[in-house]
């Protein structure tokens, strides 16, 4: 199974924007990406989920100090037709 790596940025003032930037089948790379996500954006969303839902906190607060975050949360059988590069080293991101 192929895992697609997405770049997550702020869109406007309150939305997330996902852009697919590559793919990997390397479990260690997937784990590194998702552990980084969990300790940054994932942590912020988890701690502020209710307030984000109610509009009392803006996701822009997180992106005030962070340009973007990667996540590897989509698995697929086929990437045919997509212009995605294989990520073999996390430093490529």
């Amino acid at each position: 199974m192929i895992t697609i790596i997405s770049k997550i940025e702020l869109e406007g003032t309150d939305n997330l924007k996902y852009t697919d930037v590559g793919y990997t089948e390397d479990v260690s790379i997937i784990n590194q990406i998702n552990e980084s996500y969990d300790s940054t954006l994932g942590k912020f969303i988890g701690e502020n989920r209710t307030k984000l839902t109610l509009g009392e906190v803006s996701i822009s607060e997180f992106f005030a100090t962070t340009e973007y975050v990667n996540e590897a949360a989509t698995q697929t059988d086929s990437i045919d037709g997509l212009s995605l590069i294989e990520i073999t080293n996390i430093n490529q991101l």
Partner: protein
Amino acid sequence: MASPTKGNTTNSSATPGASSKNYTHNQNTGDDGLIVVQLSMTNNRNFTGATYGGQAMTQLYQINRGGLGQKMAFYYLENPPTGSNTLTLSFSASVWNGVSVHIRSFTDSGGIGASNRTGGQSSPHSGDITVEEDSLIMITSCCVNVILTQQIPTGTNRTFTTHNVNRQVATGAISANGGHSAGTINVRATSASGNLTLDRTEIKGLGSSVDTTGGDFFAIM
């Protein structure tokens, strides 16, 4: 008759953080195509639509599982555009929980058939669905605790994807390639503990092009 041919799958549990989210999926080339999407997310939002390749998908169901705090839905599109296209989900407002998404393509499909759904019951949760000859069955469940099995039919474990959104979701379980004989099929889901749901949907094969129910029958020797 012939069973539907299974195609590509795409799974995601990402948090949209917006009132829509795009997923890229490659629909297989072939006649009588079908694309389906099984969904589950927190029930403080609604699914308001789905498109694939810009074409509106049909909502088969959307159910509020209040006891589990989940909204579960199923969309499909017959004869979708082939190749890599964008599936866009729309929500009633920005979603800040993970959304369980399972997209599956088929070819050689006669479309969606029966669909039965039951809310949270203690494990094991069994249910019936009456299908046509050679149809496949897809099932999905949600639960507070770990989901252990998805059985199609009961007694036969099928592989599935687990998504940990704000609940445990089992998605993507489907019958073996040969499909089922016409009739009522019992399926089952089990969890480590606690109540779990069981939604089942028939994916129909292609009807026979030869009417064998009556009239003359010719054998080619």
